[in-house]
């Protein structure tokens, strides 16, 4: 082993196999990282990124037992020989979901937690907590309750709780996953600053395009536990397979030849569409004393609409769609579902026409088998048994899960669970489909394939989806609702709404490379499309 005291991280021939698995999760990893270097590790889900992080921060094999071979050294000392308290002052880890790593009810106490555990004297803790809060520019959050913070704020607080322990290496596990584009851009700038200030950063993330904006010094691409590429960012863009991770649109079009990809695009709405849902001067507040969450919202969903609802976190997007199915009733104004005010409908009655897929599948899956999970909704709606069986079969086929019919939904992978949760709504044969963040936690490859499948599915009068992913809206919708502060800021065809740069800036929507390329080519294409299709117009 090389005894380089200067090198923050040195990994040689690292292989790790969990005891409960038969095959290693990562094989033969070699890596050297210099001080202040920002390394991006990209790859599809299940590629071994998380296992690699666990080997570096010591959770594997300390908490996750398994066989580790090869060497990992932090500043020349083997990770296995360091105690957990020594290790945690060298390596800080930001877990994927900030919500699940905040342990205290208040910000100040949360940041102090690690130092308390290290038995640092009280006055010293207070000084360092305040210093760290100031460094991250979140001193104003000091006495707030952690529960009431926004996603971006939560992440900064979690990060403060790690930085306060003054680690030399920072591990970030998909730090952008739960953030809206503006918070994500903000977080990325912060990571850049940390690296510039000398902290070594190892970031696992599949939103490659976003991370490239802060110029990582090096990129590593993994598949099936092995390193496929390691080197400068440009080299990765030229090497890895398109559609595995999301690459900048310019790169995609440069690498493809015209006509190589079939283009799936949203169908145009019919000329004389039926009105399905109508919001009529809808105001809503959660409690009499709280602020309005929806402010005089007016719009209709018509037959053939595929609506993407865009807007920053906390804008009221979820509150809006919950009104359509009657889970929330307007404080003032009326929501009509097929002409009937939702006040006169029970949620169960509304559910017969309108299916609503919640953001996280784990919040609704409960049945012992996929088959029973799918029967749950139709049975509640009192569909006849033979019809239920038919619809369940159809739904399973639509999401490509026929072979998992007898499996327990909770034992499936996250991506499969997400598909089960969609199938559970499909089986109810609702004619309007609403989805809240259908693509979170899915890698690029997976979400493209199931969005393709949904768009092509027959039987829906209209589809609505809430998303942070501008490209998703751009590719799949034929109408965009821009939402901010409880109000509709814009409503129209994607080509109209998204070409207004001033409007996008004021609603915190960050243009992507795909949008820029589409706008450039719009005179020739006439409408927005995915990068693979744009190739034909270059």
């Amino acid at each position, binding site marked *: 082993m090389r005894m380089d005291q200067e090198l923050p991280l040195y990994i040689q021939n690292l292989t790790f196999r969990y005891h409960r698995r038969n095959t290693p999760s990562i094989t033969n990893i070699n890596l050297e990282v210099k001080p202040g270097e920002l390394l991006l590790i990209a790859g599809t889900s299940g590629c071994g990124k998380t296992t690699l992080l666990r080997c570096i921060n010591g959770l594997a094999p300390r908490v996750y037992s398994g066989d580790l071979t090869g060497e990992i050294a932090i500043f020349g000392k083997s990770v296995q020989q360091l105690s957990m308290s020594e290790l945690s002052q060298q390596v800080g880890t930001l877990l994927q979901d900030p919500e699940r790593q905040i*342990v205290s009810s208040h910000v100040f106490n949360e940041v102090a937690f690690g130092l308390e555990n*290290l038995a640092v004297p009280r006055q010293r803790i207070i000084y360092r907590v305040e210093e760290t809060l100031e460094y991250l520019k979140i001193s104003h959050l000091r006495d707030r309750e952690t529960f009431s913070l926004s996603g971006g704020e939560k992440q900064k607080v979690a990060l403060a709780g790690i930085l306060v322990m003054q680690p030399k290496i920072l591990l970030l596990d998909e730090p952008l996953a739960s953030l809206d584009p503006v918070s994500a851009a903000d977080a990325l700038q912060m990571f850049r600053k940390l690296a510039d200030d000398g902290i070594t950063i190892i970031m696992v993330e599949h939103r490659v395009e976003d991370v490239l904006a802060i110029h990582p010094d090096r990129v590593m691409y993994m598949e099936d536990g092995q390193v496929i590429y390691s080197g400068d960012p440009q080299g990765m863009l030229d090497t890895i397979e398109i559609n595995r991770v999301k690459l900048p649109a310019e790169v995609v079009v440069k690498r493809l030849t015209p006509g190589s990809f079939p283009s799936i695009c949203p169908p145009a709405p019919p000329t004389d569409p039926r009105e399905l849902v109508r919001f009529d001067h809808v105001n809503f507040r959660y409690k009499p004393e709280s602020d309005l969450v929806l402010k005089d919202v007016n719009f209709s969903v018509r037959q053939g609409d595929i609506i993407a609802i865009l807007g920053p976190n906390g804008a009221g997007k979820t509150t809006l769609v919950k009104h359509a199915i009657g889970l929330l009733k307007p404080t003032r104004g009326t929501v009509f579902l097929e002409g009937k005010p939702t006040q006169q409908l029970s*949620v169960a009655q509304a559910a017969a026409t309108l299916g609503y897929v919640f953001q996280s599948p784990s919040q609704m899956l409960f049945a012992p088998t996929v088959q029973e999970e799918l029967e749950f909704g139709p049975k509640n709606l009192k569909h006849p048994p033979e019809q239920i069986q038919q619809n369940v079969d159809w739904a399973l086929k639509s999401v490509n899960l026929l072979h998992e019919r007898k499996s327990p939904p909770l034992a499936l992978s996250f991506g499969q669970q997400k598909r089960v949760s969609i199938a559970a709504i499909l089986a109810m044969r609702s004619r309007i489909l609403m989805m809240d963040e259908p693509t979170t936690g899915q890698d690029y490859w997976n979400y493209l394939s199931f969005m393709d499948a949904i768009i092509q599915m027959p039987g829906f009068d209209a589809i609505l989806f809430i998303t942070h992913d501008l490209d998703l809206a751009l590719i799949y919708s034929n109408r965009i609702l821009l939402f901010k502060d409880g109000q509709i800021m814009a409503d129209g065809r994607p080509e109209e709404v998204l070409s207004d740069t001033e409007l996008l800036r004021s609603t915190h929507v960050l243009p992507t490379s795909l949008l820029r390329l589409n706008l450039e080519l719009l005179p020739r294409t006439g409408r927005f499309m995915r990068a693979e299709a744009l190739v034909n117009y270059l």
Partner: protein
Amino acid sequence: MLVSFSYRPRHSFIERFDPRARWIMSLALLFSIVLFWDIRILSFFFVLSILQVFLARLTWQETRRAWLFILVLSTMMILVNTIITGGGTIGGVISGGKPLLQFQLKIPVTGWIIHYVLTRERVWFALAQFLRIISIGSLFLVIPFTMDPRKYGVTFRGIGLPDKLAFTMDLAFRFIPTLARDFQITLDAQRARGYEVEKIEGNLFTRIRRMAPLFVPVTMNAILAGEDITNAMDLRCFGLKKRTWVESLKYQEIDYLMIGISILILVGSLLLRFVFHTGDFWFPM
């Protein structure tokens, strides 16, 4: 639904005391109250407890649900324990006694005859029990509304619990609102699938089974979140050594006074009960 812990600073008299002193006071009074069935002594504790509620500046609106809960619970206990079955649990109520109300009930089919007598003694016993429950209830009802959740951990540490156990109290405060929110989301998600919790019928087991769509996801989520939380805590060295508590507590004179009085009351109660043998069930002749 879940109890929401609605602490906010109220600048009340009771908040000027150290939380440790308040816990010691509450526990001392609790142990004293359970010694007695004599309504005259219980009235003294009742007044103390209610006094605390007023000194804490609690309003009816915010405490309404907690009070209703205590009232329903005490009414049920009293009905079962004293009014219906009679006697109570300590055998303090002499059988017989002066009847206030009596009637006979013949159950159809079986032909069983129920002879029901409500005696004066039972009514007084019910009253004593009511006073006990309300005193204890209001003693502890004040705590979540007036004690800063940040101080729970260090308070329990200060009373003598080990670090790990004491910190668990802090964790609980962190997760109650999250759990309540997750429950609401799951309820909404299932309602969107046509599930109607109001319409659950059948016997106990059927009902429990039909609640599975709510409890399975909430429990599974809590378990999954638990894994992340323990990782996050391990990575930040929880439980490796004796920890510092950044929240600090300092006894003032009034705290010593409160602890002193509380101990006096407890010792006095013990003396009354076990040396002077007073405080048994009592009613006016």
